């Protein structure tokens, strides 16, 4: 699964802010850290503000502060503000003869969607921050050097 840009930016911002709930940060500070467009991030932060996940702090030295409950807000709660995950869409199978292959494929893909939805709903922001602190990707990288080399070759 690949997240759209705005969704990834929203997750960076929300998690950065949730990591230090009292502290306010500007769009520029966060954008600089991730090397992303401050203009785009500012727009995303406004959307997050409208959804009540962050508070805008006005005035000199203003910025944004986390306003949610990190133990209850899940990755899905953030993602669904910016994109449709198909697990949510629940498209009906179009009626009609000779559509069995399409229906069968949709049936198999729905399996994946259900998995994606359950995973994203089970990981709260605080669980995500704990995961980041553990850096589990490092031990995965040790197990799969071949895969990494392959990916690096493809990237070249």
């Amino acid at each position: 699964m690949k997240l759209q840009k705005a969704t990834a930016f929203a997750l960076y911002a929300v998690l950065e802010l949730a990591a230090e709930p009292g502290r306010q940060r500007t769009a520029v500070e966060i954008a600089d850290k991730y090397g992303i467009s401050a203009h785009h991030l500012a727009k995303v932060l406004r959307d997050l503000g409208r959804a009540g996940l962050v508070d805008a702090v006005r005035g000199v030295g203003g910025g944004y502060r986390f306003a949610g409950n990190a133990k209850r807000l899940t990755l899905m709660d953030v993602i669904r503000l910016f994109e449709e995950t198909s697990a949510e869409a629940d498209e009906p199978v179009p009626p009609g003869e000779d559509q069995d292959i399409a229906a069968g494929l949709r049936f198999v893909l729905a399996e994946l969607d259900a998995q994606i939805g359950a995973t994203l709903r089970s990981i709260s922001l605080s669980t995500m921050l704990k995961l980041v602190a553990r850096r589990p990707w490092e031990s995965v990288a040790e197990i799969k050097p071949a895969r990494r080399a392959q990916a690096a070759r493809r990237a070249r």
Partner: protein
Amino acid sequence: MARRSTTPTPQESDEDLIIRSATLADVAGVIALDEEVTGLLKPQYWRELFEHFGARRRDQRFFLVAGDPGRIDGFIIGEVRAWEFGSPPSGWVFAVQVRPRLRVRGLGSRLFAAVRARFRAAGVERVRTMVARDNAVIHAFFRSQGMMAGPFIELEMRLD
């Protein structure tokens, strides 16, 4: 215990609740707690489970409880499973429950930590479990403990 006569505050921790292996005297309390949580009274099921997990092979099977025999506040059940589907021996957790009034104050985490310590002492390196996809609370709980998807996929079909 005076502590229980007042409504617990969210700040209060349950660090004074001892986690220990279940005895036969605890089974009635487990049955009552399960009935409170699930709304189903299943005495036979829990007695058999205790027979299997609490009474035999106690170096490999763990039935841990918190609370007094008459009043169980939480429990967790697990066992070491060896070479299932080619996997090296690993710990399996297949039941955990905390009294609703005492939830979100760390008891579930302590029960899980206690069973992990038993698994480690039994010489295994991993702990596994299975959750219902639509049970968000139990899924979020195990995720918060650091669990991730494992290398197995659960499959099933209807027998007709």
